[in-house]
């Protein structure tokens, strides 16, 4: 079975394809565009999100990973939508002309794309959720999420106030989850009309936030067919829920725990991914938020098979490595393959659930996203 990787970087996307997971063909596409996320729909069409501080946000699509066409629509707030200028990551500090001081709300990045139940979903910053039910030809804001009560207390993480994680329940189209840094995880049970914080048991990272929000969730993963069992890589450690996020418990047995900048002791990292066949879950810990590189320089992916404890997987990974793996840069191809990209532009792959690793590509710009598709 062949595999395709869409590797997003600030300068374009590397499309890596292999028939044997050993030799790879590479093409660098969408040159000049920061590529932040991608997803494939149920018909095999790939969607890639790009953004530019100069020319805004857009989506490109391809049916063959060679020919890319920009869609004529993209997630955008309405002209009258009001936002908080302090929530913007890039634009606010470059707001020389005062556009944001009037409180207008702008989409400055698509953080994640998600396909479920025939619809395409986009999580953006300033934190919001959009849906397209016509495969990207038009986008509608989910007002129940974008205007939900309590939003005024949300605070951005270091990368901005981004809705970076969208999860869905394969058996219940009315249930979805959205994760925001640093507001926490939210769930709807009524198809997006109303949303509730799902952060009980997770320490807030924002002191001024209400107890129910202010958690700096970095990523969440689960099996959509067993959707209530969830694994959450938080700024303050890894947590597990067995009730759809109603409650969370720390799950760090085997992970490298360190002291964070605020004195809290826990594990730290960004991405998480699940192989749906085996149920194995993977995270890539860093040595706390002070250093943000692998402990001792040993790049390691950690795996849990039993949902209780973690084991390091280092075979084939460098032992003198001081880079990081960002939140969107780990992906399972759902055929036993696992791939991740580093902030220093190297892609590693495993075809045996992490037991051994090979370098797939190097010399790329900082890798922001990796999506792997078995074909």
């Amino acid at each position, binding site marked *: 079975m062949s595999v395709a990787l869409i590797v997003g970087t600030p300068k374009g996307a590397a499309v890596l394809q292999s028939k044997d997971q050993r030799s790879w063909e590479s093409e660098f596409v969408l040159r000049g*565009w920061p590529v932040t996320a991608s997803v494939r729909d149920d018909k095999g069409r790939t969607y890639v999100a790009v953004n530019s501080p*100069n*020319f*805004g946000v857009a989506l490109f699509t391809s049916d063959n990973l060679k020919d890319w066409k*920009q869609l*004529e629509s993209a997630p955008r707030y309405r*002209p009258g939508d009001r936002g908080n200028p302090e929530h913007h990551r890039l634009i606010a500090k470059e707001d020389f002309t005062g*556009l944001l001081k009037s409180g207008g709300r*702008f989409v400055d990045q698509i953080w994640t794309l998600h396909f479920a139940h025939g619809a395409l979903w986009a999580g953006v910053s300033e934190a919001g959720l959009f849906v397209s039910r016509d495969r990207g030809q038009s986008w509608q804001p989910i007002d129940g999420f974008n205007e939900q009560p309590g939003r005024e207390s949300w605070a951005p993480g270091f990368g901005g106030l981004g809705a970076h994680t969208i999860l869905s329940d394969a058996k219940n189209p009315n249930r979805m989850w959205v994760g925001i840094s640093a507001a926490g995880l939210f769930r709807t049970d009524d198809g997006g009309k109303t949303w509730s914080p799902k952060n009980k048991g997770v320490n807030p990272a924002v002191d001024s936030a209400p107890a129910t929000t202010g958690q700096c969730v970095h990523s969440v993963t689960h099996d959509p067919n067993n959707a209530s069992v969830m694994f959450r890589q938080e700024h303050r450690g890894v947590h597990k829920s067995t009730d759809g996020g109603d409650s969370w418990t720390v799950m760090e047995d085997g992970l490298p725990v360190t002291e964070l900048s605020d004195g809290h002791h826990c594990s730290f990292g960004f991405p998480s991914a699940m192989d749906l066949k085996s149920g194995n879950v993977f995270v890539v810990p860093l040595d706390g938020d002070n250093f943000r590189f692998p402990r001792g320089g040993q790049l390691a992916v950690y795996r849990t098979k039993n949902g209780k404890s973690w084991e390091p997987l280092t075979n084939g990974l460098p032992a003198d490595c001081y880079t990081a793996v960002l939140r969107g840069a780990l992906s399972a191809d759902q055929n036993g393959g696992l791939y991740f990209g580093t902030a220093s532009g190297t892609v590693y792959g495993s075809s045996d659930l992490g037991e051994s690793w090979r370098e797939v590509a190097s010399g790329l710009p900082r890798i922001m996203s990796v999506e792997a598709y078995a074909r």
Partner: protein
Amino acid sequence: MSIRVQLPPILRPVMGGERTVAATGSSIGAVLLDLKQRYPALGLHFFTEGGAIRHNIVFLHDGAMIRAKDAMAHRLKPGDEVVITNALAGG
């Protein structure tokens, strides 16, 4: 009135790789609105949600640099060429 618009390299794939595109309008703003109407994908890159020209876009016309805030009303003559680029930053 026919105006020739030169696109920045990053936007040329939107127009199938073309370096320039023809437009009509008596001002930069009118030209951009004409392009937006005919090529919605291109229009996404010119205007914010609020309808303003994105503030990092810079226009070159007749030897002058026109900032986004001044571009909507900036007058053009038939046969003019407008270069779209972006504000430079860094060092």
